[in-house]
């Protein structure tokens, strides 16, 4: 069994750590490129959301590299993601691609089924060994988030952002290759020291919050590297979704104590959005309020085109903008997005946010 799984940002590092320590043979799909998009789009339904198409492209490219089994998550919510695997499976079999799909459904559907599937994958490994594998993967998830968080914070502040980027890439590679938890932690400490020594600029960057659907927020290819674009334009980016926070909330049931604002921000969605709407709709609204309350200079929402929960969230934005007076920008992403268009819209948005921000400081000074 040569197992593969779709890409989503740096998730591959975490899943690879898990599967390798479970003794599985992992074939990673090549990094997502234009070719992946073309393959995915060619065989996907026209109106399926962007992640669906990228997933399919990932599978096909992984198959070229010798993968024969796909590990995929399921779900039973209002979001379309829950039925991805079944449609993708049908498309693959119609294409004559012989790949088996192992779909992990959430445990509340059938706990026994999840247990059986894990057993099917890992053979007769003991539960203790499985626990150790999960703990190792979790350690890498935390490490990845830490280096990313620092990257986002430092990018607008260092004199040479490209050098910082290089250090970040190296750190990721080392985390990916680290054989044990101690090495992982050492990599993080080293990275923090090295980046701490970088030459700084003395400026006060704009602060922008990034909210939206998990895949488009976490996958730089899907969002046309929006974090990097913003960082190079001198903006400090913070986002509503972090991999380890998400894993803790959704897979461990919030068992571990990972302190993060986004977890509490969710509750701020009411009165603007008073019901769960699937996907990350409530988180998007709640975190936008959270960023506004923390006096960010603007919030950018990312979503795949036709994403239903994000459309609902976007729809209630006017009420929110009225109360908090914060600039909001939404990008719907799909395979047709032109990069120049995105860059122009970002620049315009930042110009406006900056003008507004300086006006606000003047105003506050005059009150003093």
């Amino acid at each position, binding site marked *: 069994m040569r197992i593969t799984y779709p890409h989503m940002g740096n998730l591959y590092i975490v899943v690879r750590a898990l599967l390798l320590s479970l003794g599985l043979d992992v074939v990673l799909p090549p990094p997502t490129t234009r070719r992946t998009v073309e393959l995915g789009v060619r065989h996907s339904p026209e109106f399926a959301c962007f992640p669906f198409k990228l997933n399919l492209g990932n599978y096909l490219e992984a198959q070229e590299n010798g993968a024969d089994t796909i590990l995929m998550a*399921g779900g039973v919510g209002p979001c379309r993601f829950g039925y991805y695997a079944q449609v993708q499976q049908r498309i693959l079999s119609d294409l004559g691609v012989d790949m088996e799909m192992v779909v992990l459904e959430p445990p509340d559907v059938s706990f026994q089924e999840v247990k059986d599937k894990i057993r099917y994958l890992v053979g007769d490994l003991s539960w203790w060994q499985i626990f150790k594998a999960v703990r190792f993967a979790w350690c890498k998830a935390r490490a990845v988030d830490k280096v990313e968080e620092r990257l986002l914070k430092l990018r607008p502040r260092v004199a040479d952002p490209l050098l910082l980027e290089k250090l970040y890439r190296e750190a990721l590679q080392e985390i990916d290759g680290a054989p044990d938890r101690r090495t992982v932690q050492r990599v993080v400490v080293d990275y923090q020291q090295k980046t701490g020594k970088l030459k700084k600029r003395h400026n006060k960057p704009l602060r922008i919050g990034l909210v939206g659907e998990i895949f488009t927020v976490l996958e730089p290819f899907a969002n046309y590297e929006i974090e990097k674009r913003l960082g190079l334009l001198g903006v400090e980016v913070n986002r509503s979704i972090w991999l380890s926070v998400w894993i803790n909330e959704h897979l461990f049931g919030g068992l571990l104590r990972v302190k993060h604002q986004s977890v509490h921000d969710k509750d701020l969605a009411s009165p603007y959005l*008073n019901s769960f709407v*699937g996907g990350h709709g409530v988180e998007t609204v709640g975190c936008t309020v959270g960023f506004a309350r923390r006096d960010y200079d603007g919030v950018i929402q990312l979503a795949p085109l*036709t*994403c239903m929960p994000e*459309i*609902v969230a976007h*729809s209630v934005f006017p*009420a929110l903008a009225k109360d908090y007076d914060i600039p909001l920008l939404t990008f*719907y992403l799909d395979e047709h997005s032109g990069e120049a268009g995105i860059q122009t819209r970002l620049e315009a948005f930042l110009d406006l946010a900056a003008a507004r921000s300086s006006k606000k400081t003047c105003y506050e000074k005059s009150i003093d």
Partner: protein
Amino acid sequence: MIKIKKVGIPRALLYYYYFPLWNEFFTRLGCEVVLSPETNKAILDQGIKSTLSEVCLPVKVYFGHAAYLAGRVDYLFVPRITRVEAKEYICPKFMGIPDMLRARINKLPPLIDTTVDAGKEGNPVQCWADCLREAGKSLTADRKLIEDALDAALEAQEFFWKRLNSGLILPDAIKGIGNPEIPLYSHSKHLRIGLIGHPYNIYDPYISMNLIKKLRQLGALVVTPESLAADEIEEEAASLSKRLFWTLGKRMIGSAFRFINSQKLDGVIYLTSFGCGPEALVEELVARIAKQQNMPLMMLTIDEHTGEAGINTRLEAFTEMIVWRKKYAHHIPPYGESVHCR
């Protein structure tokens, strides 16, 4: 003099399934039910203006109807519809619609936005009973009156489902006009066409551009998902490897399977609205099954820009192709390929 409270009901989205229930309930409570008129250009334009361009056509239409009613009623009934069957959602937009309306339409009357949620174990009757009981409380304090109204409303709804199952096409059943009953699979020389689509698309004559009427004029008998019994749909949908957890998606795929597998129909038309989330995946499965089973299938996607001439041409072409197929191909497709249009 006591002023009679006016409750507005937008003639859009699930109005097509539940109007008898809502109407009876609010009428029995002593309210005047104000129904928005059939969708027209002004309503659609208003809807487009007041909502995002990204939402699907039926939701835009809903916004138009809500905006039309806003100045004319004392309350607007816009239930938050989460689940009408256990463990099955409809669409995130149905769950967020009261919030979306509040954020985007000014000067709304008070919304009656009680939640319909069958949860994990509920059933289609109980979830509506809960919702309406809550709704009733905002209109009257008389518990007995609410219960009586509820009983009558559920009975009216039951009667409506029966009329649908007897073969009445939905708009006729809703109007209560005593049409002659149309048998599901007649053996006449007519073309028999299955029309699949969400009720608020296929039965809204404005946004579907009179699709049903057009098909009839082209000499076709039209069968819709609503003419199938719930257990028939359930049975067909059960053949999927994973239970479909969207109520309307399940209706679509269940009826599509029945229409395709029974081989009693000459063709199937699948009407969807642009950007409909669940349909993007469901229609893909249907298209693949239809191809496998050699069933002519035409996908029609509508949005606010649809040109009527384009639809007419495609309908004519589709029906003509089916006629040819019946006449010349004797159900054996020429060249080994099905007469398959997409």
